[in-house]
């Protein structure tokens, strides 16, 4: 297959499946749905990985680039590409959707609509990770919203309408911030001879004053960059989510059905971190340089606040939801680790953030799955009314214990690597934030171990519907085991992820450093000229 067409196929195969599902009889909907998701997973792994390593990167580190004219009058192009920052997330997306589809196997209410929306959601997520044109990125970013609204709103829990619209309102507010920023940058890019452009690669060059060809000499002034950075950061902080923009998340997670929670925590939150790395930093480096410390601080606040909030929960799913807020704080911590003098730490921070996204993608998917298994059987999630599951459901409890340890960051499991690397990296940039984050690991252990004790250990469960507490089915065991195996594998041998991310992160850090340097030189030059004039 033409390697360039591969990315388009990955993005639009689920959408084609969505159309097919909507037209097919209800009885076969889940077969088409699962089949499409499995095919997409194979494309993102068996086809994409070899193609990625064979391809040579372009000037901007992008591989397998597809580029075509789309809307001439706005200079919008259809551009897809993949690099070391997006590749891990694309693979993670394929995997989480596959596991989530397997979890959705028994959805009986309106199956056609469910699977259509599910597949449409996958198109949105994959497209967001692969788009290189800002317009395309924005469209696909928004395509995620509507399916999610309906997936929560129609198949969710008792308070689903509230949770769905809250999710939608928060995320749309973020999207509009993003839209305003993108249009500002779009206009600024056209201030010279060249036409305004939505191309991320061109705009990032222009933003650091390194435009070539007809964009040579075009710059984006500091004021525009600062405003655009905060607007974009606002969008992605909502998506991530970071305190104080996180309040949509517990509601959405608790009301969403289990497979949707798995996707939401496993993949959708990562769009926030990815957006900061792909858009907010490269397109507005001067604004970012000034704001990085605050990013770091917000990360620390999220870690501590999320952990404290998780400690106070008695609902299993809410606890896991708040733990997501806390764990995504490490992503932010790593992303905020701007150390101009020590680029190695800086790179480590970005790589660690990406690894933490992957690691959290696995552990949070696993934790939400664990909650879902229990809720399916006994229809409640009260931590204090469980107990003794180790005896009733030994396989489930063993995997659940392992997953909890992975989530709390036990060395040797995947949660540890991301947390440790981001905390190390943040130390030179902001020792206080790093110290707070390290303390957060203890808080995490606190709520996780309490949960473990109340749910898996202790006296036998005597709550309602105890007769339903049957062993895991083969399907459930397989899903859980895959996640656990990955948690162990990445914890023991995280190298593959870092190998992929490091070149891309190195490139990004170098360009960001150049941008700040160039700006400093410009300012110095102006000062000298001003001094000479006096």
């Amino acid at each position, binding site marked *: 297959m033409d390697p360039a067409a591969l990315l388009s196929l990955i993005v639009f195969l689920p959408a084609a499946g969505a159309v097919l599902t909507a037209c097919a009889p209800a009885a076969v909907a889940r077969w088409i749905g699962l089949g499409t998701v499995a095919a997409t997973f194979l494309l993102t792994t068996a086809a994409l990985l070899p193609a990625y390593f064979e391809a040579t990167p372009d000037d901007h580190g992008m591989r397998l680039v597809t580029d075509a004219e789309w809307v001439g009058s*706005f200079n919008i192009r259809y551009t897809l590409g993949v690099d070391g920052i997006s590749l891990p997330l694309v693979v993670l997306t394929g995997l989480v959707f596959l596991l989530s589809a397997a979890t959705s196997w028994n959805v009986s209410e309106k199956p056609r609509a469910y699977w259509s929306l599910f597949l449409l959601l996958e198109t949105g997520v994959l497209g967001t990770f692969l788009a290189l044109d800002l317009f395309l990125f924005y469209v696909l970013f928004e395509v995620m*919203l509507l399916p999610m609204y*309906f997936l929560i709103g129609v198949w969710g829990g008792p308070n689903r309408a509230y949770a769905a619209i809250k999710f939608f309102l928060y995320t749309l507010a973020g999207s509009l911030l993003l839209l*305003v920023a993108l249009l500002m940058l779009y206009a600024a890019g056209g201030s010279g001879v060249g036409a305004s452009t939505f191309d991320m690669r061109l705009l990032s060059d222009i933003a650091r004053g390194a435009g070539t060809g007809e964009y040579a000499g075009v710059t984006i002034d500091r004021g525009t960059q600062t405003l655009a950075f905060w607007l974009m950061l606002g969008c992605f902080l909502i998506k991530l989510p970071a305190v104080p923009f996180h309040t949509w998340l517990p509601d959405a997670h608790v009301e969403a059905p289990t497979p949707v929670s798995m996707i939401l925590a496993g993949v959708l939150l990562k769009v926030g971190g990815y957006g900061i790395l792909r858009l907010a930093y490269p397109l507005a480096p001067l604004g970012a340089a000034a704001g990085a410390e605050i990013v770091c601080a917000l990360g620390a606040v999220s870690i501590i606040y999320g952990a404290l909030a998780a400690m106070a929960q008695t609902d299993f799913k809410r606890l896991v939801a708040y733990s997501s807020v806390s764990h995504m704080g490490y992503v932010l911590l790593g992303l905020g680790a701007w150390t101009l003098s020590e680029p190695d730490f800086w790179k480590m921070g970005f790589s660690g953030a990406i690894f933490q996204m992957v690691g959290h993608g696995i552990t949070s998917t696993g934790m939400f799955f664990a909650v879902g298994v229990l809720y399916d059987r006994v229809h409640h999630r009260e931590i204090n009314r469980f107990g003794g599951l180790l005896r009733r459901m030994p396989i489930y409890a063993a995997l659940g214990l392992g997953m909890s340890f992975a989530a709390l960051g036990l060395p040797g499991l995947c949660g540890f690597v991301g947390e440790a690397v981001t905390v190390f990296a943040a130390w030179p940039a902001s020792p206080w934030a790093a110290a707070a984050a390290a303390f957060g690991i203890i808080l995490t252990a606190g709520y996780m171990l309490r949960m473990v004790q109340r749910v898996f250990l202790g006296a036998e469960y005597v709550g309602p519907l105890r007769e339903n507490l049957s062993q895991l089915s083969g399907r459930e065991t397989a899903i859980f085991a895959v996640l656990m195996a990955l948690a162990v594998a990445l914890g023991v041998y995280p190298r593959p992820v870092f190998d992929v991310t490091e070149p891309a992160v190195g490139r990004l850090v170098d360009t960001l450093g150049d941008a700040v340097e160039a700006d400093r030189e410009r300012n110095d030059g102006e000062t000298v000229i001003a001094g000479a004039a006096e």
Partner: protein
Amino acid sequence: MARDWQGVLPDLALSLPAFAPELIVCATIVALLLTRLFGMARWLPAGSVAFGGSALATALACLQWGGAFESPSDGWAGLVRNDALTVYVRVLCLLGWNLTVTLTLLTGVPRPSIDPADDDGPDFHVPLAAVALGSVLMGQANHLLMLFLAVEMASVPAYVLVGFRKGSREAGEAALKYLVFGAGAAGVMMYGASLLAGVTGTLSLPALGERLALIPLEGLEWNEPGVGGAAIAGVVFILCGLAFKLSLVPFHFWTPDAFQGALAEVSGFLSVAPKIGAFALLVRFGLSLHGPFGETGDALLTGLGLACAAGAAVSMTFGNLAAFAQKDLGRLLAYSTVAQSGTMLLGVAACFLGVGRGDGDLAVAGLAGTLLYLTAYLFLNLGAFAAVAIFRNRTLRTDVASLAGLGSKMPWVAGAFAVSLVGLVGLPPTAGFVGKLAVFAAALSDRVGSPLLFAAALIAAANTVASLFYYFRPIRSLYLDAAPEGTSGAPIGPPVTGSERAYLVLLAVPVLLILPLLGRLGALCDAIAEAVL
């Protein structure tokens, strides 16, 4: 004054072909009036006549595409302008008319009757056609007199249409309110036109810019006695009259009552065609202030642009806030119209500001954005009101709560309604997003040069988020809420017919499939904007 009779025949020869679609509309109106005679209604119902006439007029208007770009001309001794914008407005308004007539045939409004004395068909379709005619004329008025006539042509029949539901107190009250408001606005606009005519000594829009250049810029103050103050007052008063047609705050008060009282089919048409015409008219009027050597005209135009930006911000905010509390679908969509007008006005404001300070790119981007938005808006609003009309025929209600659980009972209508609402929010990949994007891109392009416009665009962005809340209340009722107790199994009203479905699909398809076509459409709007500027 001596009349140059020599020029009349060539002028006629030039004006008539360009005016063919309007003549068809006039002929349709006459034919509609004649159907009552000689018992013709028995074998040729008014609806069919209107459908035939509207289809023919739309087809003729479409055939004019290329010509208007190549050779724009004045018609009827300079009363009307025949250029790309004219044709654009003509096609959209006549298409809107045709779609509305089709909808009335599908929903059986007004109720057909075998007894000719009892048949309301002509009474309904004549004013409908007249509104279409007025809207089309608004798009080409090139003369202050024509401006007034066109606005009245679109307004007076609309009063009748709003009050069409006989015996309904709601409709009667709405029509009265609309009439009183309209009469006031018309008076104010007439006064404004007379002031401008007095100041400049001309009624012709193309001559306005040159004449305004004769007023010294220093004289252009509110409190300055004489021509400067009168010119400002003239512009402001005409803006008031147009703002009434565009239902911009604070001239919107008629909108919710009229749209609630009128039939959904009528509301849909009134929310689209006259608005498209009025936007074109506003653009024509504003651009006429700009002339060669026209510092004064440009100052007036910049002022008008700023007023539009401010008016846009106020309209969106107020329209959205007022829509939050609405329980009736007609009222909800009416306030949505107010807000949408505000967003579209943002593009016009960018256009005026761009022309005012000689920034051609901004002007083209702003006008093209508004045109793109209007195209999307035609399908979005007609689709939304059509869905309301079809729901009404089944549930006999038009409140939001009546939609509960209909998502699975009437999936096609519900789906079409949802598509329209999502489009009105402006979410991709619908047409509404494209319009919003184009307008925002223009308004946000210059943060330093026009801070008020930039601020208005930020307010527009915030309003988009706010509007989600009320646009999604019907969607929530349709899909998330359960059907009321006891009715879950029972079918509601007669089943939705295939032609109704086809009609809704016809309106939803352009909304959903705009992205692949965006290249052509964007280029077209750019070309029109460049031609007009």
